[in-house]
């Protein structure tokens, strides 16, 4: 092919002309590079390599936003972008080209490489050649190896078919266009910018060569180079690696991420939910996260958290101690099943051995798609017994949320009811599938390797595969649970065995639990904790996926079954009990009187509801903790205190022993400071610390890094303040803070004043307009149209009430027939959705449609 000269790109959005330069590489060609020089000697040099068929334009945001002390170089590989066209380059050539460039530019250490797509192997080849210069590696949706069983990415396969290759890649713009189409939604001018250097067939020659150079077969000339790279990265133990990954990439799917993690288990991972192939375009957090990650190389890595729970008995100790106890451990009121401690301990041991026999190994992740009950409980303790990690995605996430959650957690095995296995099948979970149900044709159809009973039987036959003396590692992962995702995709939260031990002790201390207690678990997640605490538990007859089906009668029967002293329930379940209180028989009513503590957890609880519960069981204390999936419980308050509470927001009480709480003040734009204070009456983001909080987020490095500021603490994303008595008040979500010209406004106090005055059950306070200059709108839930402007009288009343209570000036009052709430708790207001709808109405733009 004739040589085509390199040249400078035209004016393109986001690209600064002063970055562009041409570098002559004798005997190779001329490379176009973008370079953002450092002020003074570079503290770090970032070397960014694009894939096929993009160009250095991919990294414009990195050049724009990198700290001034960095030197940032983004290359156009030869034959690509605005570099010269010439002879076909194979992978080994490209690695050498990059070496020639860094030599020509006198790149010295320390260097961090950043790469995408087939730029990944090229950059890694360069790293292996320049190991002494490199301090960090960033990879985005790429691959170094074709994982076994993985099909070649569809687009590549299409492009590689002999007949189509020249046409798809060179003859037409299909491949170039196809790549930008692999992003979620790019502005037209950005799509055009990506395609700009590939307008003609000649310009696209290297696009074809690049695709042809992918070694799909072992005999391919580039196969040895790629294999050497794939092997080389397995020795990166002391080299920090960041994998920033688009979760929905049809080319480089999660399989390739799994392969890379297997090669570099120490890598930090952030899987950007919903982002596609061009992850840096699809998720605005990606480039800032990459920059922060590189900064952390200097500021110091996240310190390895101190071991927690080392001195505490393991999670299975409660069960072990009662191996010979014939008393009831679990009373499942739905199946009328009573399981003794002896039976539960034996069954757990059998399943544990059976799982090992089926190939489950310590550290493997097991998704439990089982409704709470004896099978679930035995499976959880069996998994912990053998050092496996329990993944719990509950139906409260909704089906879509469950799928996303499971895909992101990547379980290796599944134990599930038929619907659960069906889900596992569509998600292509790679390992074993165990059915909670009967063997037979249906089981085989679901792809089950065995039923749970068969697992237990095999465990009985092969008992002894799990040494009785096996000790669980307090630092090893034990549980992945999911946030409700009310404000975005659900995030996986990882607990270690030691942190779960600390959680168990925190509950024991906070609620003075002794051996003589018994638990009524109407809040599904807690049903599992009874055996760890060494106390019997009863599961009421109800649809556990819909807490509102709980009735006072089923609650009373469950309490009677174990002479319950503690009850854990969600606000929705509590509502079910209270609304059916009149149907209780008098024996049922008296059975309730063994209760001494009623704990309502999951979402804020109206005082009136607690009061009615308290009226049913006058001897019991009604309390409600504050916490979240990442850390629970943190504070506690009871009915007596709540009834007399007057203040801004919702009172959640004093920190429990062992919990620290501080406030990171808000600035005028509604952002919370890095540092926090314990001063009273300062409103800001609530940050917390407790031994039993989560260890980390699962494969969300960026989220993790922000949530961990200051180090060792957890940023909750809630806003609130401490009062003079050290009590915490919650004022809403950080993401929902309204930023007016007079300063930030937190929503909860405004909502409480508005709904009280309007006689509504629910209200939503939202900001309209640009951040920092927003107007406040309040929607109250009242019968009528889905959303409308409140009449002037109501508007004035609500405005006056809000002003009197909070000093906040409301611009507009709206009525909504139904304010949207979250799926899991049906009580957390989706203010983001309300804000969007309100903004549209109040703009008047809808009127001309």
């Amino acid at each position, binding site marked *: 092919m004739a040589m085509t000269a390199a040249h400078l790109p035209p004016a393109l959005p986001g690209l600064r002309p002063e970055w562009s330069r041409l570098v002559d590489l004798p005997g190779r060609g001329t490379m176009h590079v973008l370079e953002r020089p450092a002020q003074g000697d570079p503290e770090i040099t970032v070397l960014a390599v694009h894939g096929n068929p993009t160009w250095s334009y991919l990294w414009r945001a990195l050049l724009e936003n990198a700290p001034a002390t960095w030197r940032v170089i983004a290359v156009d590989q030869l034959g690509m972008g605005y570099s010269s066209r010439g002879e076909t380059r194979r992978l080994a050539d490209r690695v050498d080209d990059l070496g020639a460039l860094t030599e020509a530019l006198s790149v010295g250490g320390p260097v961090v490489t950043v790469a995408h797509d087939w730029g990944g192997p090229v950059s890694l080849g360069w790293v292996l050649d320049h190991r002494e210069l490199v301090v960090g590696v960033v990879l985005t949706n790429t691959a170094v190896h074709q994982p076994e069983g993985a099909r070649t990415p569809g687009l590549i396969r299409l492009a590689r078919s002999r007949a189509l290759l020249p046409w798809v890649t060179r003859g037409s713009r299909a491949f170039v266009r196809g790549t930008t189409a692999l992003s979620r939604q790019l502005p037209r001018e950005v799509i055009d910018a990506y395609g700009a250097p590939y307008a003609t067939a000649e310009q696209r020659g290297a696009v074809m060569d690049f695709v042809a150079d992918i070694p799909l077969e072992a005999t391919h000339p580039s196969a040895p180079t790629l294999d050497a790279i794939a092997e080389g990265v397995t020795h990166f133990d002391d080299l920090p690696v960041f994998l920033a990954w688009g979760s929905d990439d049809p080319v480089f799917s999660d399989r390739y991420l799994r392969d890379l993690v297997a090669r570099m288990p120490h890598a930090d991972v952030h899987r950007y939910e919903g982002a596609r192939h061009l992850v840096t375009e699809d998720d605005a957090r990606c480039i800032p996260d990459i920059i922060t990650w590189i900064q952390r190389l200097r500021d110091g890595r996240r310190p390895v958290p101190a071991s927690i729970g080392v001195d505490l008995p393991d999670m299975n100790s409660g069960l072990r101690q009662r191996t010979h106890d014939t008393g009831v451990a679990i009373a499942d009121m739905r199946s009328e099943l009573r399981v003794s401690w002896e039976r539960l301990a034996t069954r757990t041991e059998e399943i544990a051995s059976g799982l090992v026999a089926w190939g489950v190994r310590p550290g493997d992740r097991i998704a439990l798609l089982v409704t709470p009950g004896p099978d679930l409980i035995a499976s959880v303790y069996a998994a912990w017994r053998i050092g496996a990690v329990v993944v719990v995605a509950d139906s409260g996430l909704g089906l879509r949320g469950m799928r996303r959650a499971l895909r992101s957690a990547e379980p290796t095995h599944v134990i599930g009811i038929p619907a659960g296995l069906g889900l596992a099948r569509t998600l292509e979970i790679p390992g074993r599938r165990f059915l909670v149900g009967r063997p037979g044709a249906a089981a085989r159809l679901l792809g089950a390797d065995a039923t749970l009973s068969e697992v237990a039987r095999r465990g009985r036959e092969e008992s002894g595969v799990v040494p009785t003396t096996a000790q669980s590692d307090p630092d090893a992962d034990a549980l992945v649970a999911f946030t409700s995702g009310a404000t975005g995709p659900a995030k996986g939260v990882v607990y270690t065995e030691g942190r779960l031990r600390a959680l168990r002790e925190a509950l024991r201390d906070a609620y003075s639990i002794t051996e003589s207690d018994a638990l009524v678990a109407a809040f599904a997640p807690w049903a599992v904790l009874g055996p760890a605490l060494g106390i019997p538990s009863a599961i009421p007859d109800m649809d556990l996926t819909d807490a509102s089906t709980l009735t006072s009668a089923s609650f009373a029967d469950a309490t009677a079954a174990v002479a319950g002293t503690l009850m854990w329930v969600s606000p929705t379940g509590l509502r079910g009990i209270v609304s059916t209180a009149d149907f209780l028989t008098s024996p049922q009513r008296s059975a309730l009187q063994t209760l001494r503590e009623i704990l309502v957890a999951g979402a804020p609880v109206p005082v009136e509801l607690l009061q009615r519960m308290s009226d049913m069981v006058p001897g019991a204390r009604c309390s409600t903790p504050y916490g979240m999936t990442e850390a629970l419980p943190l504070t506690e308050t009871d009915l007596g205190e709540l009834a007399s509470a007057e203040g801004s927001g919702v009172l959640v009480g004093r920190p429990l022993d062992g919990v620290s709480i501080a406030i990171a003040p808000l600035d005028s734009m509604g952002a919370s400071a890095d540092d926090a204070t314990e001063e009273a009456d300062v409103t800001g983001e609530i940050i917390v610390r407790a031994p039993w909080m989560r260890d980390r987020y699962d494969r969300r490095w960026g989220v993790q890094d922000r949530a961990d500021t200051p180090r060792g603490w957890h940023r909750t994303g809630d806003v609130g303040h401490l009062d003079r008595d050290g009590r915490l008040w919650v004022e809403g979500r950080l993401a929902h803070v309204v930023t007016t010209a007079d300063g930030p406004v937190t929503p909860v106090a405004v909502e409480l004043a508005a709904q009280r005055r309007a006689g509504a059950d629910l209200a939503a306070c939202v900001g*309209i307009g640009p951040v920092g200059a927003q107007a406040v709108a309040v929607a109250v839930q009242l019968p009528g149209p889905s959303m409308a402007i409140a009449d002037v009288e109501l508007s004035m009343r609500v405005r006056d009430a809000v002003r009197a209570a909070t000093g906040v000036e409301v611009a507009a009052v709206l009525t909504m027939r139904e304010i949207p709430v979250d799926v899991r708790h049906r009580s957390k207001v989706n203010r983001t959705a309300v804000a969007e709808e309100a903004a549209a109405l109040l703009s*008047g733009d809808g009127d001309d449609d």
Partner: protein
Amino acid sequence: MTDRVVVTGGAGVVGGAAARALAASGFDVVSVQRGPISDEMRTLGIQEYRADITGGAAGLVDALRGASAVVHAAARVDIIGPWEEFERINVHGTAAVVEAAQIAGIERLVMVSSPSVAHAGRSLVGAPAGTADPDAARGNYARSKAMAELVALEADSGDLAVIVLRPHLVWGPGDRQLTERIVERARAGRLVTIGSGAALIDTTYIDNAGDAIVAAVRRAQLPQVRGRSFVVSNGEPRTVVEMLTRIAWAGGADGPARSIPFPVAKAGGRVVEQWWERTGRAGEPPVTSFLAEQLATAHWFDQREVRTALQWHPRVSIEEGFGRLAAHLGGR
């Protein structure tokens, strides 16, 4: 000797508010206008100087001599009319005032303008002031004011500091432009909203506009202020329907009786505009497409910059404003 400030257009809403606020702040105020000033203004110690700004700079220099600042509020503010009229009064008139200010050695010129000079169509939600753009401005009034702003800001250099204030929808006792028209229509049962009336709009209580001009006179020479345009409002947006209702109530009448769909109003407005112009009718048509747009889409502005730059904050809240208007008009 007290500081002397000359106000053009003192007989108008904003000019009058500026003259009164300046006098109340201790300035020596001269009102340049075609007719005699009101007795009320006279009792406040405001002096009268009869002149027409369309008569050229020469006729104004004498009035300006000895003053340190000029507030230029004289303008034709109708929503309809022949372009030549707007050009003569708003563009050439401003040029004459600027020229006279230069000749007379004035230090500070505060020009009163309108947010419409920088914004065309579509909704404005917490919008910045923006730069005046005659090509994009909608209607003769906005276009002529945009040109006038450019003429005035062009003169900001050296000894003469120029600043532009754009008060948005000024209302209150004594305002005949907006307030009394709403009240009149409401009393006649002819007050309507266009569309749902849900669009948020920013308005300015009349006394606050006067105060902002006093602040501008005081601070016009500061480097962070001179040569700039600021939108001024109460910073308390309300829905159109609530504004109309509250003003009607203050006038002792009921709120809007019904609503006209926006597309109908807009199309109807266009027909009315053409018919009005063709038939050469005087006064103001019931609705124009520009007005339909103003009353149906959000128009409110980011007030942070102006408050910081002028060290000014609205003294009369919108609620208090309604109270004062009701006291003035005898409504609720």
